[in-house]
């Protein structure tokens, strides 16, 4: 579905991403691990062109992604942020219905119906008219994920979804992601939750120094790491 070929991203003289390549097919769940500050967040933002790449190409369904069609591509690729980024001036319900109605994908009533259905499914229906400042962080992140789901994305990107949560809230969010995995949603997740990664990933990636240094099936990745730096990293985190 998505073909990332030799992309690079620099900010001035700072080369954050160098020659990174990755292929993701439908139904896959790719988890990216790596030391902090090596451009993992930037990498995600390059995929949906929130950050335009300075080298290489990205193909989505065999179509080259450029700044011109980025907006359309973003409708199909969702992004869940570490800091949730719910729209503070809108209620939970409005957060969910804004994009589909503005982009003409759903009528206001249709959007509301779909939103309420999703909220009910995840037991958040009584928060529908609450403002983001009034709900817990775990609830915020779940709402953020549902907001992305409202667009029926083909691929969902997660940027350290649980790193800003207090420990009690982490499991509710991971449960939600597990359910999405069960329904076959294609995902690319950046996380520090190792056991969760082991459980959910169909493929593991090690992102270090702006490029993917190792890519394996989970058990190979964790039990027989090939590159010395990955070995070193795993010994630190496990």
């Amino acid at each position, binding site marked *: 579905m998505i073909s990332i070929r030799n992309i690079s991203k620099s900010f001035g003289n700072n080369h954050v991403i160098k020659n990174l390549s990755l292929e993701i097919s439908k139904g896959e769940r790719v988890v990216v691990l790596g030391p902090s500050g090596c451009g993992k967040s930037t990498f995600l*933002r390059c995929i*949906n062109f*929130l950050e335009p790449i300075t080298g290489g190409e990205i193909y989505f369904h065999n179509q080259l992604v450029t700044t011109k069609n980025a*907006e*359309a591509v*973003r*409708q199909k690729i*969702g*992004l869940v*942020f570490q*800091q949730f*980024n*719910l*729209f*503070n*001036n*809108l209620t939970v319900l409005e957060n969910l219905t*804004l*994009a589909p109605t*503005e*982009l003409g994908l759903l009528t206001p009533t249709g959007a509301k119906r779909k939103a309420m259905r999703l909220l009910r499914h995840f037991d958040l229906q009584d928060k529908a008219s609450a*403002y983001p*400042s*009034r709900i817990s962080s775990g609830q915020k992140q779940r709402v*953020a994920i549902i*907001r*992305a789901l409202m*667009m029926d994305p083909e691929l969902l990107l997660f940027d350290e979804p649980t790193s800003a949560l207090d420990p009690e809230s982490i499991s509710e969010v991971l449960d939600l992601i597990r359910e999405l995995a069960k329904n076959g949603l294609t995902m690319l997740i950046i996380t520090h939750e190792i056991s969760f990664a082991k459980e959910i990933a169909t493929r593991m990636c090690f992102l270090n120094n702006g490029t993917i240094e190792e890519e394996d099936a989970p058990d190979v990745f964790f039990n027989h790491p090939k590159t010395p730096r990955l070995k070193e990293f795993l010994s630190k985190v496990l």
Partner: protein
Amino acid sequence: MGDFFTKIAELFNNPVYLNALLRGLGLTLQISIAAALTGLIIGTAVALIGIAKPTPWLKIPKFLARVYVTVIRGTPMALQLFIMFYVVFTFRGFPELITAILAFGINSGAYVSENIRAGILSVDIGQTEAGLALGLSHRTTMQKIVLPQAVKNVIPAIGNELIALIKETSIVSMIGMYDLTMAAKIIGSGNNMASYLVPMSVAAAAYLIVVYFLTFVIKKIEKRLRAGDLH
């Protein structure tokens, strides 16, 4: 000293003088409020032009916006007022109230645009990122998500601008408009009290009371807006 207070009593006991002050105060408020609103509109436009990504379409508007802000901030308000009255709006029958509102509004817009710019930029960038990540256009993201939040940040600045205008508009008394300062000038002139000390003091007190009241109201509004932000 006692003489001062007798004269003040004299002023307050004179309905003609009180009327004059009220009439002047009315005009001061009219001009200030209308100019503040005008400045808000102009300032928002200038701020948005300044923030927008530099496309070729925007080269000229961006340049004009910068010139506008530089010139207005670099020249005294009195001169701007004179130019508006004596050079620009010299058409027969053109209402001087409109000229005054435009003069102060254009002046206010240049200063306020900076506050609005800061207010917009101070909205967390994550809000914009989330909007764009959903596929919304820059414009929709700005309109529906960023600007509504920027308003909260900008309200105290606009409030302060209104207060500044209340005092600034006193220079219209130089060219014949009947504002609060003109009322004081007339009450103090040879034919009336023949002394400026008392009417000027009373007018100053009036300005002070109005400003104090507005400050109080703005603080209240700020509090209410912040109340929704408890995390």
